[in-house]
């Protein structure tokens, strides 16, 4: 039977292409002890992803004038200027390049009602722009404040871990531009191994405050595929001490709602039964 080409074309819409083959999981290891605060990562990210500048606002907060991750700033270099020598540490100026954590169990992905947020073949958390409906559930779900909705297109945006570059076998723009290897990109298992060695090295050198943030899962939260080496409490770098998955609240929430529903049903039943009297 010769099918009408128009019909075939219509049927194509229902055909699904083969999903891309699963690849080795990749991620970032950001070693803050090597960050010189040059912001090359911020600029390289914006240049490659063609993100607009966010306006010119001098904040007076050390050398940080972009302030936070946003829909148009996917790498952000934080400056922790503590030169007063109080708080039990020597005068110091810490720098850290912040980015999406690409959580192994990402709350944003769990919160996304449309299936726009997915894990791509590299295990990276990725927002499919053509599917995002701009509900912003992910924005509130992310415990790190990474996701943000762009006010122009109304959709959620964040680091793609340079999905497009990775597909061509290239290193993400930020890691490529980092002059001191503070941002390292690679298969995440290799990175974790390298990071553990690095911490041991620093500890042996007497820098006993060095530790990894997010390299391993905790009871409350999954491991991060983009993890950090820090020298002080996470809050010093504006990271949550113990990030939480909103999903974890669901069981209790459901129970409470269910119990409330049952209670209210009983209550109304009681009311009605009394009314019959």
């Amino acid at each position, binding site marked *: 039977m010769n099918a009408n080409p128009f019909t075939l074309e219509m049927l194509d819409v229902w055909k699904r292409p083969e999903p891309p083959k699963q690849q080795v999981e990749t991620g970032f290891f950001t070693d803050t002890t090597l960050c010189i*605060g*040059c912001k090359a990562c911020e600029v390289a990210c914006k240049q490659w992803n063609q993100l607009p*500048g966010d306006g*010119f606002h001098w904040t007076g907060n050390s*050398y940080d004038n972009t302030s936070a991750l946003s829909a148009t700033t996917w790498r952000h270099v934080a400056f922790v200027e503590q030169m007063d020598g109080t708080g039990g540490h020597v005068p110091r*100026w810490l720098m850290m390049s912040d980015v999406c954590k690409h959580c192994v169990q990402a709350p944003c992905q769990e919160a996304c009602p449309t299936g726009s947020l997915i894990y791509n073949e590299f295990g990276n958390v990725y927002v499919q722009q053509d599917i995002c409906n701009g509900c912003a559930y992910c924005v509130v779900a992310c415990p790190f404040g990474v996701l943000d909705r762009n006010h122009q297109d109304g959709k959620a945006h964040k680091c793609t871990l340079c999905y497009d570059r990775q597909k061509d076998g290239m290193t993400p723009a930020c890691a490529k531009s980092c002059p001191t290897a503070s941002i390292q990109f690679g298969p995440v298992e290799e990175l974790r191994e390298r990071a553990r060695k690095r911490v041991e090295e620093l500890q042996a050198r007497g820098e006993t405050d060095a530790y990894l943030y997010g390299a391993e899962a905790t009871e409350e939260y999954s491991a991060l595929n983009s993890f950090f080496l820090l020298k002080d409490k996470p809050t010093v770098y504006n990271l949550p001490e113990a990030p939480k998955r909103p999903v974890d609240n669901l069981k209790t929430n459901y129970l409470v709602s269910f119990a409330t529903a049952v209670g209210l049903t009983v209550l109304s039943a009681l009311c009605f039964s009394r009314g019959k009297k």
Partner: protein
Amino acid sequence: MPGLGTTMGRGAATSFQEDLRNSDCILIMGSNMAEAHPVGFRFPMKARERGAQLIHVDPHFTRTSAMCQQYVPIRTGSDIAFLGGLIRYVLDNDRWFREYVLAYTNAATIINEEFQDAEDLEGMFSGFDTKTKAYDYKKAGWSYEGEEVAKSEPPPEIKTESFSQRLASLRNPTPPSDPELKHPRCVMNIVRRHYERYTPEMVAATCGCSVEEFLRVAETLCANSGRERTSAIVYAVGWTQHSVGVQIIRAAGILQLLLGNIGRPGGGIMAMRGHASIQGSTDVPTLYDLLPGYIPQPAVMRDHADLHGYLEQEKVTHGYWANLPKFMVSLLKAWYGPAATKDNDFGYSWIPRLDNNYSQLPTFLRMAEGKVRGLFLFGQNPAAGAPNAKLHRAAMRQLDWLVVRDWFEIESACYWYKGPEGVDPKTVPTEIFFMPAASSPEKDGTLTNTQRLLQWHDKAIDPTGDCRSDLGFLFDLGKRLKALYAGSDKARDQGLLNLTWDYGFDSPPMLPDGRPSRLPDEPDAEKVLREINGYTVADNRQVKGFSELKDDGSTACGCWIYSGVYPAPGYNRARERKRNPDNYTSPNWGFAWPHNRRMMYNRASADPEGRPWSERKKYIWWDEAAKRWTGVDEPDFEPDKAPSYRPPEGATGMASIAGNSPFIMKPDGKGWLYAPAGTKDGPLPTHYEPIESPVANLLYRQQENPTIERYDVPMNAKSAPLDPEYPIVATTFRLTEHYLSGPMSRFNSWLNELQPAMFIELSPELAAERGIEHGGWLVAWNKRGAIEARAMVTRRVRPLQVDGRTVHQIAIPFHWGFAGEVVGSSANDLTSIVADANVSMHEAKAFVVNVRPGRVEDFKDLPLRAAPWPTYRAAPDAPRSAQPEGQED
């Protein structure tokens, strides 16, 4: 860079950045390397990760300081006091590298009896002529015993910089010496005596650091130098832009020679250059007093009437510069081709001769007087980037015509209708041509980086619209000028008419994607590079290196030090990008002059007998079996000259350099602790206060460098020392986010959002004293101008205790101006024009100001209105709590 040239022989960084990873200690001083050279800073970081100590000595705490284990704040302009203190520490504690110093430096050489030191003359040296404000070499007696004065010292009004003058010629390449170092007039004893008063206490009192901080640096340096370990010094324009810049660098050279850190892996002095290819622009110079390859420009004041006289005056008898005639004749052949013959002195008479100081600052001062009629600006922005930019703008308003070639309409192209002066365009008679320039991916060519490395870049795409490369512009201009003057028989036109100008493409140029370029009339940059490399005239065969050059007109070479960059047809070494995993010097990545040597003076990495000083610091050594020098780099030495070679009586040229003398550009083959010639302000670095300073010189009665040219002209007023009106010391600095005065960065939103506004860094103590709030506005002013900026109150700037009293410093980034996407006051409206005697360098890194809260428009008594500020937001964005430690409670 005569600081390095006078000390070691060549005015360039002695080593390469990749080698910094081998350092055991790196002293960064006069450089904000992490911010200004972030890519190169990966190597100090690697060294740190391998256990090296990083030290930053700087007026304010920067991102570089944050990466170093030691940070020492000092008062800007006190560097020689600090380095002099280090020299004294090394000598007094017997921490100098004895074998190295005795064999490779002039420590044992005896100096003429007439010489008198700063010790004897309260901060001056013998031979000062108060009328000319210059040292008279004839009376000075600075030279080695038995030597006359250098024969070709130019009159003092010409500040020439050339190797041969700096090196001087020695009649006796093995001058009298005392290897026992007992003779009171041997260099070592003169140096000891000279630095005796630079005690740790004196350093602390002058620089404003603590004695402990200074001693810790000294001990760290000493502990990491010697046979087994090496330390490097990194500097940048934080050292050069002073009235004593050359001498600061000399002091670093003395220190490194004493510690045995020159020519050895992990050692050296890295001069971090401030602009892209600025090394290239001194090698193939844009300098008025040099021809390509540091050959001195002929001058009317010397016996330079013909080639013979010129060569007789300029060539030296001993060391590598004895080859000057070969380089000069080959240069003339490259320029004038067949028109250059033996009979016409190879066209020597067509080269314009110097009759004055034509460096930038004096030229602009003449321009201000209406004596300069036209100006070309190629990637230069004096209206915001030059010291005393206000004076530069005033000077440019006197021009008849001005050509600006740049990417954007920079300050120097729009100063006639905007800017802080509120100029009425009708009053500016200048015709200004703005020619859009191509960017580096839009043109072929080389960049010569800070470590003398030539790296070729290919054109990726054609430039858009009317944008053209500078090379294409000049090529076209030359063609038009030649056509204009065609047929002239005037003598003065013959140079132009005889210039070889055949750089056009032989076949239509193609782009990398295979399409033809739409600009077929642009020149072939590789042809230029081939001419620079040199070739034989008879068969047009490219030479393999400068050793093939001849003085009989049979070879042509555009710049002898670059010879070897294009040694065979189709073999452009600058284009090579081969990594070599076994050799970190990467000999096949680009081409480093001279002769692809990555580290200069590397003969010094071996002991006098040619054996490595230690296994750990092995680099170049003598292979007795092969009778050759070998190692990981090209030897900076004759490859087959044995360590045991001693020059026979009467030897000249390289034959007069012994097999144990690594500094082959020097007539005696030694590193110069004491400079008998070559620095016009003294043979030994001596601390003088900056021209503007709120502090009296604690070391000598002489307050400032006596040979300085002050240029006391209108608009260039300077504060007298200790001026109570201007008690605050100011210095300028760079941010990673912007580049120079901003022509390449302040037109880019991605950079502007990172540092959107002009600010000034000051300490909480000063802010409290003046009532300035963090995030608010402040005005800084002095006798030359006033600027306004946001106040960055931070403990990264500390008040210093200088001679028992508090001296405040402020740090001003110099990236803003009145053109571009974000604008702000220009730091250079505060800096002054002065010129040091060696290189006509100004003093933008140390001057005085006063500060108060508010905007410039609030005050009627200020000397100049500041740049109008486009208020994106009327009030500061930052809450007072944004930076709690920046507040004074």
